[in-house]
């Protein structure tokens, strides 16, 4: 049971995430890579800014990581998330799961993303030329 969580303003690296997940005992690795879209909700986006409650993010991720490992029988859970300014086209998040079988890896990775978007205290601000919007905060 291994977990690898990082919250930082550094660029994310798919190669090192994949390397950490790769092993001769787990046949299947599923990775989700979230990139910043140039438009959302019908508006052109200038860039994103992420904020995190870092101590709580880590505790929540450890809790959900243990849950995921138990529920889906997977061996490794990874989440690397950017904070602060992230430009259009850049990668804001990489989530990864390693498991003996692919079905569980897909389900667990999808579940982890679900929790990221509802439970993990990270907030996304979309910045436009004429203002900004905190995603999910208001209608």
């Amino acid at each position: 049971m291994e977990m690898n969580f990082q919250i930082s303003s550094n660029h994310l690296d798919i190669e090192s995430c994949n390397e950490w997940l790769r092993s001769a005992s787990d046949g299947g690795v599923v990775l989700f890579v979230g990139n910043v879209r140039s438009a959302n909700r019908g508006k052109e986006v200038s860039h994103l800014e992420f904020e995190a409650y870092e101590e709580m993010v880590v505790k929540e991720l450890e809790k959900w990581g243990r849950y995921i490992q138990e529920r889906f029988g997977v061996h490794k859970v990874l989440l690397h998330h950017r904070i602060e300014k992230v430009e259009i086209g850049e990668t804001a998040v990489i989530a990864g799961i390693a498991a003996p079988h692919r079905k569980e890896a897909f389900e667990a990775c999808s579940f982890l993303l679900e929790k990221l978007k509802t439970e993990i205290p990270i907030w996304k601000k979309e910045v436009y030329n004429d203002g900004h919007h905190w995603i999910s905060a208001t209608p």
Partner: protein
Amino acid sequence: MIITIKSFGIAAEICGSRTLKMEVPNDCSVEHLKELLANRYPALSELLSYRIAVNHVYELDAFLLKELDEVAIIPPASGG
């Protein structure tokens, strides 16, 4: 007692600060804290929802706060 409340994202914008001090009754419940916050920052009720975390754990309305708890206003998550 006086508690310290962290706020984040849109909540920090509404409250005008990332750290608030607030006078609350001893054994103040999370529910009562939300009422006090709504009085002081009416715009908080325009959020789709928000939760209160105490010592890095989401707590329900009935939870009673202690003076040294780390209390935080958590607007809807939107990572990813």
